[in-house]
């Protein structure tokens, strides 16, 4: 396969989930900040809620690595 396509596919595999993660965190962040202002004891839940969408970016990174390795 053309190396350009492989590189583009890997870039899409990481960038699209990263954008999705960023969007999700941009919505979750203000919501948990507001919750923490009223209930500081929710800090653990807040950290988890913010960290949960990062799974998408991490799995995107793994898929991108696999694409690059398979392509090579």
């Amino acid at each position, binding site marked *: 396969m053309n190396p350009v396509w492989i590189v583009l596919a890997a870039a899409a595999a990481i960038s699209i989930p990263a954008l999705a993660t960023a969007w999700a965190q941009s919505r979750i962040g203000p919501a948990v900040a507001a919750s923490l202002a009223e209930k500081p004891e929710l800090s*653990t839940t807040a*950290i*988890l809620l913010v960290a949960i969408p*990062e799974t998408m970016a*991490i799995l995107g990174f793994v898929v991108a*690595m696999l694409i690059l*390795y398979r392509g090579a």
Partner: protein
Amino acid sequence: MSRIRLLGPREQLDAVLAALQDTGLVHLAEPKSGELLQRISLSEGEARQTRHLQALVRDIEGLPLPAGPDRAAAPEAPARGPPDTGEFARWARSANRARRQLTRLDRRVHELESERADLARFEQFVTAFRGLLPNGGGRMQSYHLILRGEDTQAVPRLRGALSAVLGEHFALEGADLPSGERAALLLVPTAETARVERMLAQSGVHELSLPAGVESGSLGMALPALAERREKLDRDLAELARHREELLSAEGPTLVLARSAAQDRLLELGAREHAGITPRSFVLEGWVPAAAKDRLTRALARQCGASIVVEEMSREEWRGEEAPVVLTNPRLFRPFETLTRMVPLPHYGTIDPTPFMAVFFPMFFGLMMGDVGYGITLAVLAGVLHARSRRGSVARAVAEILGPCAAFAIAFGIGFGEFFGDLGRRWFGLRPLVLDREKALLPFLGLAVAIGFVHVVLGLVLGLINAGRGHPRQAVGRGAALAMVLFVAVALLAGLQVLPRSFFTPAVIALLLAFPVMVIAEGIIAPIELLSTLSSVLSYARIMALGTASVMMAVVANRLAGSFGGVVVGVLFGLLFHLVNFVLGVFAPAIHGLRLHYVEFFGKFYSPGGQQYRPLGHWRPGETEQPLPAKGIT
């Protein structure tokens, strides 16, 4: 935990509650209601005392008193008997007097500080126009104006307005003050003052008021007077601070003691509501750690005599959900209880995940950080934090958690051959013993997923054990789900030819057999949970992703540092980059390590909703509700 019932003559209820407070062992519960038992309601006198004590506590807590003695060093029981009503009344008067005196002092300090601020402002003004200020008398009136610093057109605008009113019969000078404001000095004929003041009022310009003591006399000669007044203010403020200190040190120790006694009495009055009474006797029920029951019986016999009966209730008389929970772990694992307490406590009788966290959390952290240099830096920071924190504090627990994390980071750093990235390789010829994280990405991914598989399977096994303790049907379902996860893993490994190919068909057949068992036992939701379990395993890929990101950042820091022309600039840049990477390398593994535990691992077995064990005891500083467990009973 043992559920106990205390029975005794009604007149001894207060003595028993005081003894329970001294031992700090019993978590009081509501007694089983019966026709003969009545609840105690506070008498009018007790209700009044409660209100007075609450007011006393409020008064004392409003004072800037020291936090009190170290909680760990605080005595478990008061050194002398409980205070009487007269003593509480005396303390209340002291607290009230101290509060009033402090309020007066604080008000006076506020006034003097406000005057000092005005004085400083005026001093700046006089200094700025020293050469222009009139020396008193004469036919000219001076105005001292303060304008907003950011409004650069304020002085020209004012000049224009004055020209329209006075023609050329005025003088206006502007100057920037060190405070960032703009000052203006305006001199006008005395005959025009009425018109000028009207104009200034309409234009909203703020005239600087003269400080006390310099209202009269020449402004040009005011500087020495201002300096003298400022020195006087400084002396007065120092005197007030000394007064305040003396007041607090004179009343502080008594009021700290009074607060403890009042809180103790409030706890005791609150505990009375848990008692059930008959015309002649009382009943108290509660929870005590099984190992401490004999100690409690001896203490009650010693303090209240033989008329108090301590009876252990049979297991059939209470349900596990009612029992409070206390985490009991070996010293090495105890700091990790802080992480377990960040989520709701587990139900009584279920598995405490702390020991598993104590092993896996530092391991995941070490795998992600995996660098000897960063590990040593973290160990030093943990040592400093440990030395500077108090025993039993959260900071001490954090230091004790960071210690094992640093040890794992160093151990994995040796395995990966990393010392601040590739510096170890370049300087000391350090070589990877296990794998090279910079190049062997797929093996690292395989390692991360394999560790995830072990962790998730461990969670499923713990879930099976939890279910086996009381829900046989659920246990069968959990067992089938666990078997299916194992069969899926075998089938995948056989398909990828990691295991012999001949394993594939038996694994698939076993999967097909286990599937209906799982659905029958756990319901239709079970297949979805199975998929979620498999995706949980993949979630551990983050260990590889964060580990790779960490090593890449370190390598980039080293290369960028080397690419600068000057040695000093290069080293500084490299240090800065490593510092950023280190901070990220501490936070990201901590957050993701916690997430892997709370979401992926706990989700397989953890049963939250346990009630914290809060025995009746003496109040300790820093506690707002009820006391924590007494020493030695964790």
